[in-house]
């Protein structure tokens, strides 16, 4: 681990320029131990007053320092945004959720093993170096939105639910602003080292949820084991039926791309239609039309298809066994 200076910030105004922000540290510390990240200075923000969940209009403002455990257990989240609570509880372990924060979780970096291994070429870690993952062990890499420069996935669960809920990220810094979660994480293109919309000096202060959507909230995470494991694929769904037809469908997908994936075309396709296997298959076809396997991860294409169909059947009350 490289030596670094450490500063505990007393207020948002007290952030030293150029310092790397640390909150729960559940990912950053591992990356620093491997020197995948080697910041010269760290600023600890955990004493800032950013740990409240409060109403904002018809929606909710979640402070960036609200812990994953607390957010998952929050009564309003459980009642009105159940997909978020479920996604949080599907992620990591109890110990990690106790430390991980809302803002920090958005900044979680990929689990691509070649990114973590400094012996291996990685365009994320070392722009222009190449990508050792391609042609290597690619079982958990992206099938959507990848580029010739990077095939890594965003590994988290929380953000997948936030994407389905149309969350917005509140940012303080040189130019305070709100960025829809849809635009927060970046696809790799030819700059896979740029992962988010944050600029130097920015700090995530909150995640804002719009008014809740009543309906069926589901988070289905398919993983290699029931304990702590990253998603092979995951589906966040908010589905509302009205008189036998779907009148709201919000679907986001994890484990398949460098960002929580969402496809408005399939939501348009589903809206106003009666649930049926044929409709769900059509939606899956549409979703997966741009999907590309990298070799070992080709199974994610049928797996995502099956997971989407199973989630839609479940959320629309169809029999699981048909």
């Amino acid at each position, binding site marked *: 681990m490289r030596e670094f200076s450490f500063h505990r910030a007393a207020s948002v105004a007290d952030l030293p320029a150029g310092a790397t922000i640390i909150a729960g540290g559940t990912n950053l510390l591992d990356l620093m131990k491997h*020197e995948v990240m080697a910041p010269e200075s760290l600023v600890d923000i955990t004493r800032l007053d950013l740990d409240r969940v409060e109403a904002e209009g018809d929606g909710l403002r979640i402070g960036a320092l609200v812990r994953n455990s607390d957010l998952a257990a929050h009564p309003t989240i459980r009642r009105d945004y159940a997909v978020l609570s479920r996604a949080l509880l599907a992620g990591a372990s109890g110990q990690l959720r106790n430390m991980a924060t809302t803002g920090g979780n958005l900044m979680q970096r990929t689990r691509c093993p070649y990114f973590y291994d400094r012996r291996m070429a990685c365009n994320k870690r070392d722009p222009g170096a190449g990508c050792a993952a391609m042609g*290597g*062990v690619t*079982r958990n890499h992206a099938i959507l939105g990848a580029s010739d420069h990077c095939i890594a996935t965003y590994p988290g669960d929380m953000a997948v639910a936030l994407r389905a809920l149309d969350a917005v990220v509140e940012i303080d810094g040189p130019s305070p602003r709100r960025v829809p979660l849809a635009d927060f994480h970046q696809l790799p293109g030819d700059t896979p080292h740029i992962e988010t919309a944050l600029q130097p000096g920015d700090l995530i202060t909150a995640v804002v949820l719009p008014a809740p959507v009543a309906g069926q909230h589901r988070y289905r995470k*398919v993983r290699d*084991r029931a304990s702590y494991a*990253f998603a*092979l694929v995951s589906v966040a769904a908010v589905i509302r039926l009205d008189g036998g037809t779907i009148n709201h469908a919000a679907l986001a997908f994890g484990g398949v791309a460098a960002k929580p994936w969402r496809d408005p075309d399939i939501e348009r396709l589903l809206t106003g239609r009666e649930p049926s296997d044929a409709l769900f298959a059509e939606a899956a076809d549409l979703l997966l039309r741009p999907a590309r396997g990298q070799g070992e991860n080709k*199974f994610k294409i049928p797996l995502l298809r099956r997971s989407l169909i199973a989630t839609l059947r479940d959320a629309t009350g169809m029999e699981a066994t048909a």
Partner: protein
Amino acid sequence: MTRHLRVDGPNHDDRLDHMAQGVLGQPLNRLEGPLKVSGRAAYAAEARPANLAYGVLVQASVPAGKVLDIGDAPGALAVIQDKRMVRYAAQGQAQKAPKSGPDQVEYMGQAIALVVADTFEAATHAAQNLMVRYAAEDVPVNPDAVTPELPPQKQASAGDLDRAMATAAVSVDAVWHTPSHGAAAMEPHAAIAQWDGDRVTIRAGLQMLSSNRAQMADALGIRASKLRLLAPYVGGGFGSKLGINAEAVAAAIAAKELNRPVQVSMTRQQVFDLAHRRSETRQRVRLACDPDGRLTGIGHDVLVSNLPGSEFSEPVTQATPFTYEAAHRQIVHAVARIHRGCAGSVRAPGEAVGVTVFECAMDELAEAADIDPVELRLRNIPEDEPVTGRPFSSHKLAEALRDGAQRFGWSDRRPNGQRAEGEWLIGMGMATAVRVNMLVESRAKVTLLQNGQAIVETDMTDIGTGTYTILGQLAGEMLGLPVDRVEVKLGDTDFPPSSGSGGSFGAASSGNSVYLACEDIRRQIAKAMGCDEPDLTLQNGMARAGNIARSLSELIDGSLTGEGHLEPGKTEKSVRQATWGSHWAEVAVNRWTGEVRVRRMMGVFACGRVLNEKTARSQCLGGMTFGIGIALTEAMEHDSRDGHAVSRDLAEYHIPCHADVPGLEVHFLSERDAYVGPLQAKGLGELGICGAGAAVLNAIHNACGIRVRDLPATPDKIIAGLEARA
């Protein structure tokens, strides 16, 4: 006087069943448990001698070649490159170290140097940023890329298997693959070395101290008598600490060079690179039977791998020759010489993957022959060992199968794919459990003090298995003392050399030596009492013989010392020694996502005398959990271009954790084995693993009709089956 016993024949004297203290076999908590849960049991890296320096291993970043030069390490005390460092860990029980000369790289991740600094962080930083130049070489890293060796002594055949297959009423001929496995012990490998003149003391996580001392002396080029190893607590070994490894050797070299104590601990990633892996295997199993399911032919043809020149090769077929009857048999054992990390013993080497695959094949045969899987096995249990005709030392497979079937509710099992709950398809599976039994030479010293306290000393290790407790129980039983009056001292080469922990032989081997040492003391007490030793009763500090009763404090002047020395003898060859059992599993397979969840699992085991029902049960729980791992989750993936281990941490190398392990049930059959020393106890540590995964895989088939022959059965492989059938 040392009581010496070579186990040359049977011992039917079940005197341990009739001792007065009544403590042996009791389900006592582990004696050192409170120390462990309160953090007071100091593991290898947890000592803090004054002036400690920290070493971090530098690892090769090419799969093979020569190290040309190593750059400077600013901020470090030293960069040590030394011909005495080891290429890879020594194999269990080896007397020599695999010294290398560190400039020859044989696999990616090999330790080629040590950087030492005043802090662990500074050493890590210097090691991670060290410039190393190599002359890289092109080497094969995939088993399929080379023509394998066929070691003559590892091939076997009897009769004509090809003909048996051709003429069989029913047959199975299929190929399975299992990936490399990591031992994944919780405690990463670590050592602290400290010199005092020409003597060195090394604290390390090690399983077998007496051979470890020989290996270390060989590596360092010093006499074994100048070397003391300490391993009072070991946080799991699972084979990965059988032999010394790079960290301990490097620590000793650096401590000498810097003239201060040096600690070297591996990171989790280094453990995956440097600890022995279980070789991946390719296994072709051929089974032929008559219409009644009686086996006529058994073939087990395996391909494993290891580095060139490394003797160990995963003994996949170890149990195949004696598990079932069949006239025509063939074993083919091929070894691919490739440049992945060194392969060695990991959790039940051989049977863990060999029995698992073989028992899957038996399930396929049962289905093909339309015979119940339990019945198929019952019909093929040999009377004596096939081919050799040797009798079994004890053999309770049939009882384990019948007892297990009844307890598990096997008769409720439905035809494939007939049972569902919502999205989940439910199935049941079973398998035979079998593991060879071994005894290893072992010595112990027991001292009985006048105050009625006993001290047991042996260099045996407790790797989390309960050795402290069972040896305390054994001495307590033999000397008539409550367990809290027995102090057990382990893990120090100043004590008499023992078997160490490995191959399931630790409890019985070291236990017999403690038994013998106690028998020595009992003879001395009997002499003082004027009786024969068998007529002596010892209980709660009192000695009785006939009408005479005296307290130990009256009888002992100062202390009594006994030494025990057990050696395996003729019964190694005169009988086939093995432990037996049965595995049972009920699983749920998600019809959409292919996820598999084990709903319940049960094992019935016969291992001779059970020394502590609680620690024995815990061993079986752990073994069955590994079985779930082999079946469903564990895979050390290698990059096909350079052979390096890609899954190098416990987030990516999936061992089954709490949510993956349902309530497990363990039952022991009462058994005394006369051929394994006076304890009449066989090894147990690994039996729970052997075949457990097959019960899970066979249950998957019963649930959804899919056979996964490329382990582990992760969702991708299940949905491939589901998609193929749709």
